[in-house]
């Protein structure tokens, strides 16, 4: 007798085996909790507490991650900064994936002129290499976290649109869609109830990976002085401030670097695990 599994339990059965991905998921959940409770976790004020007696002090019991060049507690700054990095990562990817998915669905389902216009716009967005587009947008809109989110979000739109368009194109000719159409379902019902769920594996894997990239892009913009401005404890901005005294106080640079690295690593490993669990091709291979 064959066991009938729902897609969800099928996914969980495969995902459960990915130890690294599970660990990463746990780490991300922990980070989210830290970010949400940052105000209560941070022992000192991240921006306005200055202890001039322990400038550039190495990690100690009082200051777990040490003290920066202005006498601020680095642990508190990292904790408060996690809010910014996670928020920019989640918000920009959510915004970009939402827009890209909508465009991709329309493009793939209706084809015709809508498809041509949308794909042409994506071509133009693709013509700007990587961070250049984000720098351009921040140059126009000005710095600050909100504009960084917008800039990084636009970055995710064309790829999501193409991915979703591709799977919409392949899904819409399948028999089950034809069957639903033949019983008189409207376009909206077909698109949202029947095609969208089919594209979700692609979107989930891509967006998870994308959060990591977006966190790096946002931190890069702040590092370049175009994103979050001092004294905001954004991780990239902290690294930029640390540049001046790398010799005497390397921990000022190492700690925010590690914070970015571990966060991005967790999202990438989770993305890898999700891909392995959601990709039907892979099971045949193993």
């Amino acid at each position: 007798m064959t066991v009938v599994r729902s897609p969800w339990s099928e996914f969980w059965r495969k995902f459960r085996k990915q130890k690294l991905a599970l660990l990463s998921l746990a780490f991300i959940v922990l980070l989210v909790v830290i970010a949400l409770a940052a105000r209560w976790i941070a022992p000192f004020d991240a921006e306005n507490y200055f202890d001039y007696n322990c400038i550039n002090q190495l990690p100690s019991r009082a200051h777990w991650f040490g003290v920066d060049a202005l006498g601020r507690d680095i642990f508190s700054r990292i904790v408060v900064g996690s809010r910014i990095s996670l928020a920019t990562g989640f918000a920009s990817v959510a915004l970009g994936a939402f827009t890209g998915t909508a465009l991709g669905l329309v493009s793939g389902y209706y084809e015709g002129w809508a498809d041509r216009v949308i794909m042409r716009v994506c071509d133009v967005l693709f013509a700007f290499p990587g961070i250049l587009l984000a720098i351009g947008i921040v140059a126009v809109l000005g710095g600050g976290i909100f504009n960084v989110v917008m800039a990084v979000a636009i970055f995710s739109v064309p790829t999501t649109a193409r991915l979703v368009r591709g799977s919409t194109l392949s899904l819409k000719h399948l028999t089950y869609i034809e069957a639903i159409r033949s019983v008189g379902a409207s376009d909206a019902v077909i698109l949202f109830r029947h095609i969208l769920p089919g594209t979700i594996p692609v979107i989930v894997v891509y967006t998870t990976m994308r959060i990591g990239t977006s966190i790096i892009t946002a931190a890069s913009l702040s590092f370049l002085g175009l994103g979050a401005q001092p004294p905001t404890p954004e991780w990239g901005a902290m690294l930029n401030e640390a540049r001046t005294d790398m010799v005497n106080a390397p921990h000022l640079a190492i700690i925010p670097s590690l914070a970015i690295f571990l966060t991005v690593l967790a999202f990438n490993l989770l993305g890898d695990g999700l891909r392995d669990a959601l990709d039907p091709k892979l099971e045949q291979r193993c």
Partner: protein
Amino acid sequence: MFRYALKRLLGLIPTLFIVAIFVFFFIHLLPGDPARLAAGQEASAQDVELIRKDLGLDKPLPQQFLRFTSGALRGDFGKSMRTKRPVMTEIAERFPYTLNLTFAAMSWSVVFGLLVGIISAIHRNHLPDHLGMTLAVSGISFPSFALGLLLMSVFSVGLKWFPTVGADTPRHYILPAITLGAGVAAVMARFTRSAFLDVLKDDYIRTARSKGVAESMVILKHGLRNAMIPVVTMMGLQFGFLLGGSIVVERVFNWPGMGRLLLDAVDMRDYPVIQAEVLLFSLQFILVNLVVDLLYGIINPTIRYK
């Protein structure tokens, strides 16, 4: 092949035109009055008006756009508002530095990425694979500016093996090229591995093995060539990321290239420079992707261009 290349080149014109419109209006949305910035804080209202006229900023927008495109086609992007020198001269001075750095980064990262990817695929699920893929996932997760700062403080400041800033000798290239290429090497390694695994389970590989072809030949001749097709596409895409990434790496190493020029221009609202740079960066990117498409035909003879 030649006709296909020509057709694709002509096909770039509309995209480039839209990019140009984009770039032009983009810059005109910048907050702040460029004429006031060019004149300086202390200039009188009269001087500002004179400069506005001089820069052609008093003309209606469509006229400014015409002037901009006809100039751009001749390679004339006006004068930098900061240095008062022609933008093309400024860019021509910086361009070789960025190009060399990009090529240095690309060459080591592609070779290294391919090697790690192939070794990981051959030793799938064994120690070399685990090591290679750990390195690769770390490579895509470590931000380039952090890596650059780390390398600089250890090898330049600490051990004094390499110079810290500047671009005069080949030794100056080593750390920036490593920093810039690390992410690409990581992506290439992961991508090569999965492309190789896909190819290795194909029938012709089994055929080659069963007729007694040496394993090294199977890997290099039958495997590599076929795995190269998706890998070359990835290389093209990565080249674009290198161009973008060079902006960040140039800031870290104080590299006298186009990225630093762009950042300085953004700081100073030097909009003729920004326009020209964004346009050139995307032109480069589009051309590289075209070259990649053409390379397909050479690697994969089953693709015929019409």
